[in-house]
């Protein structure tokens, strides 16, 4: 195991399950961590959001994410708690990257583990929808003409 543990607000496993970090993450590691947490796990659903070819006719070279440090991680923790209360899941983890990202880079990973698959699908989808509404992170586009903040999209 080469766990790349990054700074997080709480010590212990809880903190590992909710992270904001510049580095890339390992999907296998995140999924296995959740799966190994209980023998009851029958289904794991993972959502991976990636930076796709940006341009809609624009000359976007990269994107950059900024967080409200201190509040964004707290919001992610609340989001995880809300998800676990709302759905019949055994565990949930959320990783969001910040700073500069180029096309193809992985931005966000949400993993939900449950006994039965329906709950994991629902939890995972709800969680990413909700993340966009509740977590203070903003994206801007980097172009040769300068940076511009991106209006949110659903």
């Amino acid at each position, binding site marked *: 195991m080469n766990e790349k543990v990054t700074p997080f607000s709480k010590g212990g496993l809880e903190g590992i399950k909710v992270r904001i970090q510049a580095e890339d993450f390992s999907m296998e590691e995140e999924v296995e961590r959740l799966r190994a947490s209980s023998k009851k796990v029958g289904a794991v659903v993972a959502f991976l959001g990636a930076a796709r070819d940006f341009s809609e006719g624009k000359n976007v070279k990269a994107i950059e994410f900024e967080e409200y440090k201190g*509040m964004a991680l707290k919001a992610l923790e609340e989001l995880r708690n809300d998800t676990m209360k709302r759905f019949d899941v055994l565990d949930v983890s959320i990783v*969001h990257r910040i700073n500069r990202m180029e096309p193809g880079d992985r931005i966000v990973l949400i993993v939900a583990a449950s006994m039965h698959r329906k709950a994991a699908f629902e939890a995972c989808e709800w969680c990413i929808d909700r993340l966009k509404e509740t977590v203070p992170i903003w994206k801007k586009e980097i172009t040769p003409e300068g940076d511009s903040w*991106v209006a949110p999209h659903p």
Partner: protein
Amino acid sequence: MVKVLFFGILSSKTGCKETEVELGSREVELSVFMGDLRERFKDLPKAAYMIAVNKEQATLKTIVRDNDEVAIMPPFSGGSR
């Protein structure tokens, strides 16, 4: 001093990411605080998506006092498209 943070597009509109407001020993409701701030930053929109005081979501009734941190936030845009 009250620390004021502008995020995302609001930092572009105000031309400022972080500033300070002197309240002295006064305690004011956030609505008043924001009114005063708009005097200084004419391009600050009337409504923000969220305002937090000390990293907790605030309402216009929330009291702001010395040493507080006020963050003024436009709609979030985390996640992938």
